[in-house]
């Protein structure tokens, strides 16, 4: 790497030998160290230090007041015995698969359908993307109204004669989690669609035309010609979706607070409830550490796979 700036500094008078050695050993100029060390210090202070503290807290029992009591791995042992934690963990798996699967399938379908230029297509695209401008909390409050016992959803079912289907979606432990999931997917779909629309712009149309000439039907053209070209976009969407689903918190909190009786609890909401509503900071931290390990585990596997493929 050349170092043109260095040549004009007072160091210029230094003997040529040392200059050459400096260049060959790749010594980094001080200003670069500054640019590296300051963000590193900030990262350490604001990300790693709190994360380490959270790990330490997870080994204690602390209500935020007075001294924290060291209890070793008791919190983790209690987690394993805690039925709510088990529900939250399995709900998180259901959520990740359901949220990721539904929003990707629907987003891709919409993108393919709305990719062709035709009258009013912009309007459709905007309408589908629109929910993305609301925060998840607003989405949650909006859907809460729809899900009310005499709200729009039940009225619609009754209108089309499906009275038996109508129920208290958010108050029924069998449906609460899925009702929230639908609201979250409703908001996410537009985002995924836009990403796929961008990806589809990069697809070479001549290939598809060639396949059409060869007699491939629409599904075959999509499956064997278009879809393989979307690999780059798929990678991005996969990462975004998994991260979004692991960090989901606000919409569940706004709609059900993990209820009724913990049936829609996710790891994130249970962590919040323990840590901030009940101020069980040690126990909440143990859940936070669990989430952290899951996320890290996933990201490392993913990165290893992604780099190997490259």
């Amino acid at each position, binding site marked *: 790497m050349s170092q043109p700036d260095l040549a004009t500094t007072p160091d210029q008078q230094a003997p040529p030998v040392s200059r050459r050695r400096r260049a060959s050993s790749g010594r980094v100029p001080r200003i670069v160290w500054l640019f590296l060390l300051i963000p590193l210090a900030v990262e350490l202070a604001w990300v790693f230090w709190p994360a380490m503290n959270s790990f330490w807290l997870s080994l204690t*029992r602390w*209500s*935020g*007041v*007075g*001294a*924290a*009591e*060291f209890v070793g791995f008791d919190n983790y042992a*209690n987690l394993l015995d*805690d*039925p709510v934690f088990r529900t939250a963990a399995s709900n998180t798996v259901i959520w990740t698969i359901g949220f990721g699967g539904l929003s990707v399938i629907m987003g891709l379908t919409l993108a393919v359908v709305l990719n062709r230029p035709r009258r009013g297509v912009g309007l459709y695209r905007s309408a589908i993307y629109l929910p993305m401008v609301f925060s998840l909390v607003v989405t949650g409050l909006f859907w809460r109204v729809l*899900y*009310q*016992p*005499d709200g729009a959803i039940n009225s619609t079912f009754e209108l089309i004669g499906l009275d038996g289907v109508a129920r*208290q979606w*958010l*108050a029924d*432990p069998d449906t609460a989690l899925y009702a929230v999931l639908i609201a979250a997917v409703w908001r996410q779909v537009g985002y995924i669609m836009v990403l796929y629309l961008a990806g589809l712009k990069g697809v070479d149309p001549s290939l598809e035309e060639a396949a059409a000439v060869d007699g491939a039907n629409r599904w075959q053209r999509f499956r064997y010609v278009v879809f393989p070209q979307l690999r780059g976009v798929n990678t991005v969407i996969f990462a975004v979706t998994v991260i979004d689903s692991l960090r989901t918190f606000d919409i569940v909190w706004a709609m059900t*607070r993990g*209820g*009724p*009786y*913990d049936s829609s609890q996710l790891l994130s909401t249970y962590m919040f*409830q323990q840590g*901030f*509503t*009940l*101020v*069980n900071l040690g*126990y909440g931290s143990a859940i936070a550490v669990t989430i952290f390990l899951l996320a890290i585990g996933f990201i490392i596997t993913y990165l290893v796979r992604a780099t190997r493929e490259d």
Partner: protein
Amino acid sequence: MTTSRMSRRGFLAGSAALGVSGLLTGCVGAGGSDDEGDAASSPEGNGTPESTGPVTLQSSLSDPQPRAALESLIDAYDGDVTLNTVAIENYRAQLPTYLSSSNPPDVLTWYAGSVARDYAARGLLLDLSDLWTGDGACAGFSDALRSLSSTEDGTPIFVPTNYYWWGVFYRPSAFEEWGVEPAETWDDFLALCETLNAQGVSPLTMGTGGTPWVAAGWFDYLNLRVNGPEYHRELLAGQHSFDSAEVRAVMDEYAKLLPFIDPNGRSYSWQDAVTPLVQKRAAMYLIGAFITQAFPEEDVDDVDFFRVPIIDPSLPVGEEAPTDGYFAASGSQNPDGAKALLSHLAAPEYQQQFIELAGSSNLPTSPDVDTSGFSPLVQKGITHLEETDEITQFFNRDSSDELQATADTALTRFLDDPDDVDAILADWQAAAERVFDA
């Protein structure tokens, strides 16, 4: 680190270091908490302390009317007060942090009883003895309020400014239309529910969707009526099992109510559940007097209540009367200013002003408030509590927010699936043990 417990000094140093800018004031604040006695016997001594310097008032009264009422009380005060209003859920979560921070708010709204005592036991609350002695603002308050506002060893740490009663609320005009009367005994009450049901009215409304704690209201009352106030207090203190024959008897009575509770309430918050009552689709609501805030203004005169019917006449009658008010942080930079503000808030004329403006139907704690101008409902509430043998507060205030969470789970599950009561009570006891052991 070889010791397993962080030392108090270490914790204070840590918390001071957390508030980077507040490092120095943190040390001052920490010193203040050790010198509580000095602050209490400051030169101002007894009586109304002089207001000195600015004070901060942290308030959880975020509903519009109580909030405006508190603002007007602050406007009428001639000291320098900064009022911060925080939504109650956040407030609840943040309260330990407020109190233990290096620069805490001076005066805070909260509840009397075990919650306040718990903070006092950790040395976080200011000793308010001056206000309760001599010509202090609370000196004339009743002994029941004094003991509710004091620590175990009798140090006052709380200033109660209003309290409210619970009861079965209904609309007299609706009862007249339906041709029914309030019930005195449990059998009459169940018969009343039956009659109303036959007329196509939901006898009881209850919003357990967003606010599952409402379900604990019936639990408290049925336990008071079936097992008595003493057993109730002991149960909430962890001295009895939720999986006992006594609690099972309570649930048997609760089960009799279930067919009469509006099932839609499972999706409602307590405020939403008032709507069927106002619209005369539901007949009764067991709730606190704060229900009047959720009533439309034009219907507020058409609300009445009766006592939860007696089940076992041999037991002393207990009623729920949660008490609200203020305490001050021991780390306050300005304890005299804090006490001056507390005296202002507790003064009879301002208690009266608050109750009138807040539209809350709360009762004043000061015996000097002229209650003749209060609504008939509030007058009736005063008599209601005067006639009772024993006072309890509410599930979470007699125990803890954490135990309340176990009750929310158990009771909402019970509402959905009353036949599963054995498993529910066993799980409840297991969850309660985790709370008490922690």
